[in-house]
């Protein structure tokens, strides 16, 4: 059991800065995120794209912003629980008991949901029958590549994941790479490599094709792919891999009894608390009149939510407003030595 003052759900910029604000006022927190790294949409959607509207930072990338926020909260030694999705919340007297997908448990005074647009999940094939094979022969990520040895694999997608795995697996497996158009979004060098392998007969490239159907008894035995102009090809294969990036899903958050409106959680603008006492929501996931989905708004919301958490973590103490420029306590918490 992990015991801390506040559990932050989501390690995007808003969640990270909220951790900073909690640290400054002397509360402890831990952060859970479904991705394997901190940064949220900044890292997953646009690590290299510039951002121009962070106050006092004329230009930075999503990755730089994330790294700076991580540096800023370093003094607070915040514990991260990555690759974990929060599944269940239960009120336990005045505190909350939280369970994650990986079986971790938390005992916390309050919860801050900084979940963006939900947790990132792989995008799936549009064909319904695909679901049936998801546990065994149709995969959206690779954990153990040895299972593909000497098998026939059909890989779908045109980004770096699809290209890199096609190249790698072509060493040990019979690989078909299928993509909906001639152009690829992956790195140019990988595209060239795939074309070379195709010319050498070490891989079969099918462009302007998309999945049409899958068939098999317990495991996939063959698939049909359809060309833009309508021709259908049948391919025998043992595994199908789909690499269509990630999509955001609200997931279990929908079941916690929160007031949800168009995939966002309603909050007050005094401290960004939801309709449930002790649960706050900040950043892209919260809604209130005038809400702007900007990172800077998320920072403001996090600062107020952190103060809202104080009364749950330390019901007998009074929070006094202080500036970091002059507060001895805040500077001590930041580890500033003078």
């Amino acid at each position, binding site marked *: 059991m992990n015991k801390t003052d506040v559990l932050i759900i989501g390690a995007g910029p808003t969640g990270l800065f909220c951790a900073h604000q909690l640290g400054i006022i002397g509360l402890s927190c831990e952060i859970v995120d479904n991705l394997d790294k901190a940064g949220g949409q900044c890292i997953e*959607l646009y690590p290299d794209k510039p951002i121009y509207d962070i106050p006092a930072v004329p230009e930075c990338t999503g990755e730089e912003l994330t790294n700076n926020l991580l540096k800023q909260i370093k003094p607070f030694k915040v514990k991260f629980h990555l690759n974990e999705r929060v599944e269940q919340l239960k009120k336990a007297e005045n505190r909350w008991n939280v369970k994650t997908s990986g079986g971790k448990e938390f005992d916390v005074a309050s919860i801050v949901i900084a979940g963006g647009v939900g947790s990132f999940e792989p995008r799936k094939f549009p064909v319904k029958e695909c679901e049936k094979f998801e546990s065994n022969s149709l995969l959206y990520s690779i954990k153990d590549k040895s299972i593909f040895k000497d098998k026939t694999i059909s890989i779908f997608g045109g*980004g770096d994941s699809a290209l890199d795995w096609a190249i790698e697996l072509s060493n040990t497996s019979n690989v078909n790479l299928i993509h909906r158009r001639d152009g690829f979004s992956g790195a140019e060098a990988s595209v060239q490599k795939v074309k070379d392998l195709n010319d050498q007969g070490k891989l079969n490239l099918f462009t302007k094709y*998309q999945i049409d159907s899958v068939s098999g008894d317990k495991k996939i035995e063959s698939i049909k792919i359809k060309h833009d102009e309508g021709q259908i090809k049948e391919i025998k294969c043992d595994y199908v891999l789909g690499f269509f990036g990630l999509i955001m899903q609200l997931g279990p958050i929908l079941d916690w009894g929160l007031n949800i409106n168009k995939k966002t959680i309603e909050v007050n603008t005094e401290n960004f608390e939801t309709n449930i006492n002790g649960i706050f929501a900040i950043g892209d996931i919260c809604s209130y009149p005038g809400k702007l989905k900007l990172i800077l708004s998320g920072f403001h919301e996090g600062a107020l939510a952190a103060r809202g958490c104080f009364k749950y973590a330390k019901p007998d103490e009074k929070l006094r407003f202080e500036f970091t420029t002059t507060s001895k306590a805040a500077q001590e918490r930041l580890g500033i030595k003078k």
Partner: protein
Amino acid sequence: MAKITYYTHDNKTHTIDVQNGLTVMEGAIQNDIPGIDADCGGGMACATCHVYVKEQWLDKLPAKEDGEEDMLDMAFEPKNNSRLSCQLIVSDELDGLEVNIPSKQG
């Protein structure tokens, strides 16, 4: 101002006056037309505002910018007439535009 017609997956037709300067995506979101999620808010980073454009409109629309086709690779059931509606900025020239919203966005 342009009249934009959105056909949703439940076979309903929504014809809306959308102000010039807004995107086809924003026209849908502001009028509660179901089926366009626009998770990333118009940043061409998610493909959840994917629509199918009526064929006769395809070459009247602004050309795809770099990145739109890459994002469409991620869309649910992309076709030759697929566009990201966040990239279609409404102007008088788009008066009468018709788009179909896919059955789901992911």
